């Protein structure tokens, strides 16, 4: 089972939930935590994994053999991203704009274009106290997170429980990280900002056809907007975590909630059981 932990709004507690969920389930299950927030990966700070392997993430970008090129301009014409241009007797490539679709090399009538790897990030993997772990790190200055996220997701193939920590927002990196999961947990806070972005995240998850539930973090301040919204939209609130300075301080020191306050473990196990019930029920109804 693959569970994505997303939020819309940043800083609502995704990392806290993803790491504590993994640590609460590891005693009785095979658990893997994938940090898919490749722009700002933070799970390793709380999990402190031993890294046992790594692999560069490469985009395939065009390389033009000018001795074969006739400057016909076909490559520039087919590139949707303006990553290749033909000016007189010169071909210019802009590797940072390239999405690596491969159209230019395939369609070049002279077979003058080959592809070469360009590194945009790295995937590292390892383990921490019984939890298998992998994360991706986008190189600073690079724009495109999805290729790195795809590589992180590949590490999560296999059985057991896979938890994916997703970046904030609702655009391509979020969609890439959630896609293919069985359930999406949306972590939010009871404020107008939290509600606004939760509604956007719910729309995104529904577009992908994935069931979702909410974790309400920092409960006790703010207003009742999120709860009213969840009631109206029939989205279950599966866990409530209060605003608590002790929890905030543990996080600030890089200590996972269930390590600092082990009494939370049973709540996270219950959270998983609730998710499992929803997913199982859904699978049964699909089979019928």
């Amino acid at each position, binding site marked *: 089972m693959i569970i994505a932990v997303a*939020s*819309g*709004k*940043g*800083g*609502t507690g995704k*990392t806290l939930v993803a790491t504590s969920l993994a640590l609460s389930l590891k005693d009785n299950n095979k658990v893997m935590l994938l940090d898919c*927030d490749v*722009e*700002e990966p*933070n799970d390793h*700070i709380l999990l402190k994994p031993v890294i046992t392997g790594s692999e560069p993430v490469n985009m395939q970008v065009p390389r033009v053999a000018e001795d074969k090129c006739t400057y016909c301009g076909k490559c520039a014409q*087919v590139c*949707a*991203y303006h990553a290749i241009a033909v000016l007189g007797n010169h071909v210019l490539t802009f590797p940072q704009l390239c*999405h*690596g*679709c*491969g*159209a230019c090399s*395939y*369609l070049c009538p002279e077979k003058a274009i080959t592809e070469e790897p360009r590194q945009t990030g790295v995937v590292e993997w390892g383990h921490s106290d019984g939890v298998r772990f992998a994360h991706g790190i*986008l190189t*600073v*200055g*690079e*724009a*495109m*997170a999805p290729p790195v996220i795809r590589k992180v997701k590949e590490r999560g193939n296999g059985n057991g429980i896979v938890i994916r920590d997703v*970046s*904030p*927002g*609702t*655009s*391509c*990196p*979020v*969609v890439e990280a959630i*896609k293919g999961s069985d359930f999406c947990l949306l972590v939010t806070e009871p*404020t*107008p*900002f939290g509600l*606004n*972005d939760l509604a*956007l995240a719910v*729309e*995104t998850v529904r*577009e*992908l056809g994935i069931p979702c539930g909410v974790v309400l973090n920092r409960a006790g*301040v*703010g*207003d009742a907007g999120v709860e009213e919204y969840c009631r109206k939209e029939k989205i279950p609130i599966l866990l409530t975590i209060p605003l608590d*300075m002790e929890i*905030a*301080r543990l*996080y*600030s*020191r*890089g200590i996972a909630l269930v390590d600092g306050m082990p009494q939370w473990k049973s709540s996270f196990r219950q959270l998983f059981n609730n998710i499992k019930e929803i997913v199982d029920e859904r699978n049964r109804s699909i089979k019928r």
Partner: protein
Amino acid sequence: MKEIVVLSGKGGTGKTSIVGSLAALAGRKVLADCDVDAAVLHLLLSPSLKQDNEFWSGQVAHIDPDECTQCGLCQELCRFHAIRNFEVDHVSCEGCGFCFHICPVEAITMKENLSGHLFVSETRYGPLVHARLGIAQENSGKLVAQVRQQAKQIAEEQGLDYIISDGPPGIGCPVISSLSGASLALLVTEPTLSGMHDLERVLGVCRHFSVPALVCINKYDINEDNTQKIESYSSAQGIAVAAKIPFDNVVTEALVRGVPVVEYSDGRVSQEIEKLWNGVCETLKDKVKG
């Protein structure tokens, strides 16, 4: 005219609350919400909408089932795994058009994609340019670029002194699009190990694009040891810490009421944000050309 972009790396450190307050403190300015896929600045500024423009960007492939011979070439060549059972998954399609070019029976067309909306609103603090990226859409970077361009145009037309932008979290495409060419990046961090880790990375992006930076530590009293570490790190990097804002529920209370915190309370949070704005102005005078 000076353009200040507020970034953080880590999400939820308080960018928007701070931008909302700077909106109330700064003189003649236009506000820009560059967090186009989770825009919330408008919730603090009670805007009245003046313009709503469609944002058409990129294309999506479409297979005509009557023409398709199910040869499978497109499925085999698509690197984004966006074609299954001779149908295009619009969410996965990156609009490259490879399939359109190679289909032997020309069954594939590329359709223009409505990927969001660009808004211009009036607020009592000045004009606000904001946007909404469509659900599960690409090209957030391009929409950010349009938000900035629109804001710049308004600033030039009205002779305004500042563009104040609320940036997105992260370090990827929309952040780069918000940052490149700005006068100053204001980096809002928090004294958590995650916040510090992410600050280093977003500062790396500022360096990469040669934009000067200024740091603000929000909720500094959650962990004062970490706050000290951020201060020494910043000073080693030659970057000033302009303000240290304490943790206080007044920030959330102001947010629930939909007003900038400096207009809701005159306590320490508001005093520090005023200090922050003074720091921004001084840095703009000292360090920033143009």
